[in-house]
């Protein structure tokens, strides 16, 4: 399987996993479009929920969304109205990212052998951009540094009239 076709397969797994999550624990409507390659300079976001995986293939699965969407989806998950961006909202975004990545990882493991999943990292701010910088001692950036020239394969979603994206960076290990 070529890396390009594998990335397409993983994107389908991401869509399927996100759909399952929204149907079982979030109970919000969900629409999605085809994935496309997005350069990191084009990414502007408020919240990033990121999980990395290592094994025969290594990569990052990241949820990019606005604060408004983060509040809506955390409220739905917790069945409580949340109006402020608290640590509980960040925790919820981390768990959502974790459940999507975990299910993708299970599918990848079945095909390519065991993989290790990281604990989720959540970054929140205003109009964040994401750039992979080499030789930088920040964990999130170190995770991304090996992909510094790779574009994200981004799947766009819409739920509750809010857009969000799930991005994928993927590479065969030792290459």
């Amino acid at each position, binding site marked *: 399987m070529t890396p390009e076709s594998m990335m397409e397969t993983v994107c389908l797994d991401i869509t399927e996993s996100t759909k*399952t*999550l929204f149907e*079982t*624990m979030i109970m919000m409507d969900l629409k999605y479009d085809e994935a496309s390659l997005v350069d990191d300079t084009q990414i502007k976001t408020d919240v990033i929920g990121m999980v990395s995986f290592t094994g025969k293939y290594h990569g990052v699965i990241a949820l990019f969304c606005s604060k408004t969407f983060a509040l809506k989806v*955390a409220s739905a*998950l*917790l*069945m409580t109205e949340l109006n402020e961006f608290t640590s*509980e909202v960040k*925790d*919820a975004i*981390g*768990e959502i990212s*974790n*459940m999507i*990545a*975990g*299910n993708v*990882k*299970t599918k990848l*493991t*079945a095909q390519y052998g*065991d993989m290790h*999943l*990281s*604990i989720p990292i959540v970054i929140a701010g205003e109009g964040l951009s994401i750039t992979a910088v080499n030789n930088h001692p920040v964990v999130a950036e170190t995770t991304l540094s090996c992909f510094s020239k790779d574009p994200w394969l981004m799947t766009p979603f819409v739920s509750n009239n809010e857009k969000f994206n799930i991005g994928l960076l993927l590479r065969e290990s030792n290459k």
Partner: protein
Amino acid sequence: MPKVLIIDDSAVMRKIIQRNIQQSGLLVDEFVEAGDGREGLEKAISNNIDLILCDWNMPNMTGIDFVKAFRSSGQKSNIPIVMVTTEGGETKIEEAKSNGANGYLTKPFTPEQLKSKLGNFLLVK
């Protein structure tokens, strides 16, 4: 009435599991929470726990390391452990069961799936 220990590094997930158990009609008297396997081990030994629900990927001590440590401690060996985790692969399920886990539930889950898995260990109203 039973006391349930929930080991998960996400406070949100601990809250969701509690809410789902309460809404499903499963009888639980008290929930005890732990944020990783190490804290879970202390609480499992020092409390009168009837059922343990345990995540897999956690800092300090993972869920599988908790299962191994708790089962090899020789203490309270009859307490059932159900893994509640995003790790859904057959190999992981086998590994958990061969080390002493009694049940396995993959996240995300519906309230019905949770009730079905825990119904073997808890009474229903």
